[in-house]
């Protein structure tokens, strides 16, 4: 983390440091925000008078094979990725411009450094020198500009990067605005934003932002695996197994910068969606690590003597209403259902208490702009009365969820509380293969959301009017305006003031029942090192190794 160099210091960095020292900004948030502005992690630690944590890779051993349980899905154009699993396989050879780390900091990968102007409307990106593609081509500013332009193309079906690059896009043509992305020289790219946008750099660390070569034609990237990374795909059997093999003919830039890679082979083996199968695999000695361990299985894997790695996250479950569908178009109904549910009980029953309770507005205390609101009132009796008043006392509600263990258990707990409050509710559990076909359209269902590093990000993705992933069909002009305002404010305290309003609107409109923020876990065999759980499920292969 000590290799990124940058002269000068973004003024906001000092402001953040002062906030941190005053205790209004915790270390994790401080790191996320200062590194997003172009500070190195060590410089950021320096600002608050701390030394950068020493890395424990000094005694890492090279060689060996690591087998991890993971659903192996079919690859496609990276910018259309809809599952972290896809990216985690292609991370072997397709790398990212920047990397989001477990401590909340952002560090340069294919970019050596970046800096923002004072109001965060111009970002200057410096390409890391000495990086080559595994076909021998040099990696230059043109590659960076071409990929960013590709992300901005909203006409590509399923391209979710476009929603992360809004401030670079011309809303009429749905492509990159003229002059938004400028190649200054071979090693420098300048981004000119329409409005201050603090999420641009963090968006580049997200899993669909894999950097592809000029020859890539938009299909399966494993067919012609040209990339900058240290591994190559040698087997890609969807639903069965994916294998990454160390690329012996390619000198990886990161070896001298960050160290690694250590492993010769990484195997991803598919055990479906049933955690009981992961246990069988582990007991049979077929895997060395899980992708994620959930619910009751955390204790069971502990019992096998495996090591546990925990990541605190803003990942959550939204038991949401679709406001286009009867009877959830009535805000009184939504509020009444919300009022009947005690979130702390859902956390206990649905997720074994492995997290913190949430407040029905999808902004997490670990987000820098979180504003604390007065606690919500839970009152099943009053809730039932309000529901009767709205004329839906006898309406039968149906809560749909996927059959994943903890999602189903949490939904069951929600339904049980509604039932206890005297409401008429049925539960429907769908298999994962069918659930996601209509996930944005169910009237009342539970959706798992992974975390985004900033609070405004997921609100922009899921609750802004007309967004593709807006499953609640929430459309509120005031909310949109306030959110846009918040997204332009660099200063966290000021942003937090606006966010208080945003959060309040979310609660008042009864958008969803959001029971808890979950911690996520991974288990690994005692000889496996460096495969720590990552809050956004990223696999940093070059950090992994196994003890012989």
């Amino acid at each position, binding site marked *: 983390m000590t290799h990124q160099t940058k002269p000068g210091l973004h003024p906001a960095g000092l402001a953040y440091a002062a906030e941190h020292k005053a205790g209004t900004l915790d270390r994790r948030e401080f790191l996320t925000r200062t590194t997003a502005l172009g500070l190195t992690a060590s410089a950021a630690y320096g600002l608050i008078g701390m030394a950068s944590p020493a890395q424990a890779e000094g005694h890492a051993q090279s060689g060996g094979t690591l087998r991890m349980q993971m659903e192996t899905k*079919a690859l496609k154009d990276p910018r*259309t*990725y*809809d599952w972290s699993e896809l990216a985690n396989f292609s991370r072997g050879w397709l790398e990212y411009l920047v990397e989001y780390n477990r401590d909340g900091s952002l560090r340069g990968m294919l970019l050596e450094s970046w800096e923002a102007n004072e109001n965060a409307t111009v970002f200057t990106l410096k390409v890391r020198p000495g990086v080559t593609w595994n076909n021998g081509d040099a990696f230059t500013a043109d590659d960076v500009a071409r990929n960013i332009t590709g992300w901005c193309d909203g006409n590509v*079906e*399923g391209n*979710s990067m476009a929603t992360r690059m809004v401030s670079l896009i011309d809303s009429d043509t749905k492509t990159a605005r003229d002059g938004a992305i400028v190649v200054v020289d071979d090693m420098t790219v300048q981004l000119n934003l329409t409005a201050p946008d603090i999420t641009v750099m963090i968006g580049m660390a997200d899993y669909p932002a894999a950097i592809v070569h000029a020859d890539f034609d938009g*299909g*399966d990237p494993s067919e012609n695996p040209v990339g900058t990374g240290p591994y190559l795909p040698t087997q890609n*059997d*969807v*639903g*069965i197994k994916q294998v990454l093999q160390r690329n012996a003919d390619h000198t990886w830039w990161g070896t001298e910068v960050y160290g690694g890679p250590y492993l010769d082979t990484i195997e991803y*083996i598919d*055990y*479906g969606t049933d955690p009981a*199968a992961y*246990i*069988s*695999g582990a*007991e*049979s*000695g*077929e895997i060395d690590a899980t992708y994620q361990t959930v619910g009751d299985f955390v204790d*069971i894997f502990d*019992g*096998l003597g495996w090591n546990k790695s925990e990541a605190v996250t803003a990942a959550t479950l939204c038991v949401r209403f679709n406001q286009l569908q009867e009877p959830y178009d009535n805000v009184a109904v939504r509020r009444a259902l919300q009022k009947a549910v005690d979130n702390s009980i859902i956390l206990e029953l649905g997720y074994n208490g492995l997290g913190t309770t949430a407040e029905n507005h999808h902004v997490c205390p670990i987000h820098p702009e979180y504003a604390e609101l007065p606690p919500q009132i839970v009152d099943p009796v009053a809730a039932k009365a309000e529901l009767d008043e709205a004329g839906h006392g006898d309406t039968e509600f149906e809560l749909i969820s996927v059959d994943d263990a903890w999602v189903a258990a949490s939904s069951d707990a929600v339904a049980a509380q509604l039932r206890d409050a005297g409401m008429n509710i049925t539960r429907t559990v769908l*298999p994962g*293969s*069918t659930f*996601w*076909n209509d*996930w*944005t359209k169910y009237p009342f269902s539970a959706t798992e959301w992974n975390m985004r590093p900033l609070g405004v990000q997921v609100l922009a993705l899921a609750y802004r009017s007309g967004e*593709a*992933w807006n499953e609640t069909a929430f459309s509120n002009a005031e909310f949109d305006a306030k959110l846009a305002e918040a997204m332009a404010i660099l200063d966290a305290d000021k942003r937090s003031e606006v966010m208080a309003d945003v959060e309040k609107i979310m609660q008042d409109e009864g958008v969803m029942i959001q029971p808890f923020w979950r911690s996520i876990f991974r288990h690994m065999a005692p000889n496996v090192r460096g495969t720590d759980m990552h809050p956004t499920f990223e696999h940093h292969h070059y950090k992994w190794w196994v003890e012989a």
Partner: protein
Amino acid sequence: MLLFLARKTLGMLVTALCLTLIVFFLTNLSPNLEKLAKSELGARITDDEVASWLDKNGYAQPTLVRYGEWLGVLPGWTRDNDGEFTGRCIDGKADAETAASASRFCGVVQGDWGESSVFKRDVGEVVSRALKLTGKLMLCVMLVMVPGALIVGVLAGMREGSRLDRSLSTLSILTTATPEYVSGVVLVAIFASSAVGLKWLNGSATSAMDNITIANFTLPVLTIALYGMGYIARMTRASMTEVMTAQYIRTARLKGVSFYNVVMKHALRNALIAPFTVIMLQFPWLLNGVVIVETLFNYKGFGWTLVQAASNNDIELLLAVSVVSVFVVLISQLISDIGYVFLNPRIRIT
């Protein structure tokens, strides 16, 4: 005999045709096509994107036309996107020249089974990979089940009502009455679980796909075999007891033939006719069983492939899977019809 074979083959083709038409129709209902578009483009796309994808990939045509294309009796669709051609018979995007030289028909008749949308491979490749794995499983199951069932059945049936008969019969009823999804879980709990069980064997057969060992293959094989074994054993026992009361057996015994020889030389062959049909009937039943067992033990064979194809609405793979199933069922019946002739010379096939 030849006429018989010809008639059977024709029947098989007609059955396959009817079944594929039904499967084709069901998988092409519009919600299923939407599911397909979403599994191709991502779970979280809009309705417009779905419609545009379906149109671009030829799914907007009438169902019967596309069934004809799949069969290879109608020319495959082509589409001109400003000089870039796509089409059923064209791989990816092509220019006008390549598009013109591509074959017009590409369907089952031409030997082209299409591409699996789940696995992104040729259907032929996926099915043969799956059949190879399931073949290994089936072979092991047959090797355990058939001799086991016959021995149990003959032992139980040679002295009706004896203590041996009663205990073996109870055992066979018990195993047949326990479905695979129960016996599989019980076996895993007893033999594989490290929390409560003996931990002798593996509860997962994933590694058996590359390398079969006693540890990783015993439980899946046993789960299927136990279920079929009880049924065959019951049939063998019934048939054996009937033969044992026949006149010629009494004659043989009065002649002074030893009990062993009566059973082995006189009774066994006649007693095997009924179980033979049952064993052949077990093939389609086993296909049923492998769906459960392969999913339970995470063994990626034919049953697992069927589940994946069905749950993801993988049209062309599902069609191929149904054709294979039709052939497995009907060919095993054909073999049992022919097998009769050899077991019982009084039966003739004309």
